[in-house]
């Protein structure tokens, strides 16, 4: 399975900056791997979950649980393409659970970036997989201006929502560090979600 050739890839952090301004204050934003590293430099909302340490590929599953428990909030999951490939079944689970308040954004750079940009088994067409899994709204962007001008429509689309952002890998930059003890962060998040 091959994705269509992309003429351009944009800077992942620019895409996150756009998300930072577009998110609603009540949204939960989960980031993992490279998006987590960049997101931590932009925002420190009490509703952010920097999923570090993580279980490999499970940000989407964590997001589904939060979405089911908090149906009045939107849950935005910023995932890597390597992470997405490790848990493709979660897309079927999300669609099957009828979680209309989940938005999955996949930052597709084509490599395992945080381990040194090794190649993946193949370049998958993740949008086709998401459609096949049952996602209601599926998008694909390879231009930052297009992403920036469309982000509000993406976030407001009928859910569950899936979007691929074709971004350039940041080779040689270390992966994200944990921003603090996860157990303590879990306690603070529960408090924030209950208020």
């Amino acid at each position, binding site marked *: 399975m091959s994705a269509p050739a992309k003429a351009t890839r944009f800077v992942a952090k620019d895409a996150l900056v756009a998300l930072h301004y577009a998110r609603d204050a009540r949204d939960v934003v989960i980031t993992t791997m490279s998006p987590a590293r960049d997101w931590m430099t932009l925002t420190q909302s009490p509703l952010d979950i920097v999923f570090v340490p993580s279980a490999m590929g*499970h940000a989407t599953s964590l997001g589904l649980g939060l979405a089911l*428990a908090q149906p009045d909030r939107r849950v935005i999951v910023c995932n890597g393409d390597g992470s997405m490939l490790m848990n493709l079944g*979660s897309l079927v689970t999300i669609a099957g659970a009828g979680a209309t308040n989940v938005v999955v954004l996949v930052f597709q750079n084509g490599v395992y970036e945080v381990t040194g940009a090794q190649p993946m088994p193949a370049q998958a067409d993740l949008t086709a997989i998401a459609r096949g899994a049952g996602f209601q709204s599926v998008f694909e962007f390879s231009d930052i201006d297009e992403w920036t001008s469309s982000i509000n429509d993406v976030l407001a689309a009928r859910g569950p929502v899936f979007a691929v952002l074709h971004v350039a890998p940041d080779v040689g930059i270390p992966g994200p560090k944990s921003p603090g003890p996860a157990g303590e962060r879990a306690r603070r998040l529960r408090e924030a979600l209950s208020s």
Partner: protein
Amino acid sequence: MFSGDQIADSLERLGVTHVVTVPDSTIGQWQSEIESRATMKVVRVCREGEAWEVAAGLELGGARPVVMIQCTGFFESGDAIRNVLHDWKLPIASIIGYRSYLSQETLPGDTCLVFTEPLLDAWKIDYRLLTKPTDIGVIVEHLSACRSANKPGAIVVAEGKA
């Protein structure tokens, strides 16, 4: 060994809101009764590792999940168990089917009997093994105690033929 009605009653007494599950031939028989209860929802996942992280999200969001899987899926779940129970320190409860414990007719020498309990110990999960119908009360007793202690607990249910 247990009916769906008995399991659903126990889960209701525990205040469970979501049962996150992959079925096997024993625990799968409980789904319809659980689903018939207004207080609980069944969340069907594609693979067991997912179940722990879905449960983590539910727990963080204020719900009261339980993971219900077979021991084979428990084996598959290792990285998620490590992350949810030990990194994020979430006291997720689970009910785990113990394949072939009561009969090895289908799978003689089933290695589930070799690895299930040592791996529960390895993951530092406080569990109770239920082997007879009169053990039903242990579900509420043990999982309530674990919840009060803010630690993960498991009920391991002996199963017959695979």
